[in-house]
């Protein structure tokens, strides 16, 4: 078991109004699984994904990741766990502007304190793996959307994470680029990576082993 949540509750307070976004979510993801997290907007799937990625903290409930209760960690310790064990792929790619593809892929390794030689070797390998071996030194704004997202996938893999979290990774891509990215996820799945992908597209979710459906802050049903 890679991760497990028990009764996760998340409330937001804006002014005097408390909004209950997650109302007691229990999910499990095993090592090597490819899971899609689906739901309509407002269902709480993004909030859940942020908590699973340790970008946000739950109001109540337990989140066990890699055998450890995450509530005991402080901000900097969480940063370190995210750095070493989680690879993020975002809808908006979130590459550093005016920075080359290889430097973007090196970034997580820099924060991990890896040696420069290793960073360059590993980043080059990863960019070759996602099919961008010829664009190592192109700045992020010189790349197409599909290429940028492939750089983001390479960056997510940099520190050999236990979990790849993708938040609507194809949301900003056209059909052809979507297929390229999903092929990449299929390949990573074959290589035994654990992948959790948030999406509202059935075609994308079809690549997953299993779908977790969210509705009104609760898990509603499971497919496959």
């Amino acid at each position: 078991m890679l991760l497990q949540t028990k009764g996760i509750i998340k409330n937001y307070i804006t002014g005097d109004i408390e909004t209950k976004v997650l109302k007691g979510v229990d999910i499990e993801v095993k090592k090597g699984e490819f899971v899609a997290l689906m739901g309509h907007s407002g269902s709480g799937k993004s909030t859940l994904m942020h908590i699973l990625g340790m970008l946000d903290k739950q109001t109540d409930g337990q989140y066990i990741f890699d055998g450890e209760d995450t509530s005991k960690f402080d901000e900097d310790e969480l940063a370190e766990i995210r750095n070493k064990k989680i690879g993020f792929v975002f809808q908006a790619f979130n590459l550093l502007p005016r920075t080359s593809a290889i430097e973007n892929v090196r970034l997580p390794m820099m924060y991990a304190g890896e040696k420069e030689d290793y960073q360059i070797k590993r980043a080059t390998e990863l960019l070759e793996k996602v099919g961008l071996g010829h664009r190592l030194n192109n700045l992020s704004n010189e790349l197409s959307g599909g290429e940028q997202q492939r750089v983001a996938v390479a960056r997510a893999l940099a520190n050999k994470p236990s979990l790849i979290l993708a938040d609507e990774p194809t949301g900003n891509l056209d059909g052809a680029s979507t297929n390229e990215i999903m092929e990449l996820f299929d390949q990573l799945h074959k290589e035994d990576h654990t992948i959790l992908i948030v999406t509202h597209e059935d075609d994308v979710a079809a690549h997953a082993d299993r779908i977790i459906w969210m509705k009104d802050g609760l898990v509603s049903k499971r497919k496959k």
Partner: protein
Amino acid sequence: MNFLLTIKIAIRGLLSNKIRALLTTLGVIIGVSGIIVIVSVGNGAESLIVNQITSVGTNLIGVLPGGSEEGEPPSALFGIVITTLKSDDVLALKDIPGVVAVSGYNNTVEPIVYQNQSVESTINGVFASYPEVEDALVEKGRFFTEAEDSSLAKVVVLGHVIAQDLFGDQDPIGKQIKIHNHSFRVIGVFEERGVSGFSNDDSNVYIPSQTMHKLVLGINHIAMARIKVDTADNVAPALEEVKAILRSRHGITDPSNDDFTARSQAQGLSTLSNVTGSIKLFLAAIAAIALIVGGIGIMNVMYIAVTERINEIGLRKAIGAKRKDILSQFLTEAVVITAIGGFVGIAIGVMVSFAIATVIQYLGYSWDFIVTADSILYASAIIMGIGIVFGYAPAKKAAELTAIAALRYE
């Protein structure tokens, strides 16, 4: 985090908005170049005054009426009239071992009339040994004698320039000019002594001290005295002797009650550097205000940068940046921006100082171009300090953002 890459990213960020970068660094450029120019001009002005003082001659002891603290300028320099120093006091110093010549000084500015021309000039009342004291040479005619001084002779020696102004090609010797409604006979003209510092000896005229006292000013005190000593080694013992004689003549037992200030040229120079030092400090403080304003500009732009790049901060935090990583990144960027402005400022400051020195030297003054390594070092340290001080608050704000708040910010 890779330091060089941080700098590279900071510079790229700067270049992506060149006008903003220029405006941001402008405050720092002006402040830093201001400090460099002010310190350099201060040093140049000091060199001008020092050159003037040493051009008067070497191995001199100066006496002013009125006491003063060690290293402080005497009150007589600030225009306070003290009447305790008399001609006899000065004459009594003539017999000190090593003393070559002494002269008392009084001056006033009055019109000098020859036929129907009138020229404003500084009239100096001095002793007969004035040329020896000041190493000044009489080119035409002669200087006046002690006998002429004590008999209130109405004779005058002209500076080189004023002689030409009044007489042109004519020989001035033997001509009569009018000073303070008395007719004076011109008996000599000094050779050209050159412009040095603020006064121009060549435009002055010189009359006997007693004549000055009785016929022009109607006083009987000396405003200043200079004592010429034969060798540098004899200056210090002669100075002690000067003080001892003046004390005994004025009935002073406690040196703290001295009613005069006697200093050697060397002491005078160090007093001067105290005075110019505080002026320089004052001017540097003004430039420092410009630097602080520049620093506030940096702070403003760093706050904008943090807001603009809030999603980037979120991304960095998401993939593993700790608080200190973000803090040091934005601090580095602030320091890089400030440093670029600072070094441009140093370069401009040095060039401007050099231009000023060149122009002043061209005008014939003995002005030295001085930019010390010290002032550049201080300026660099101040630049770094400003980058850190004014970059800290924005960097801290960036570091304290939570990953999710920064990522979601729109």
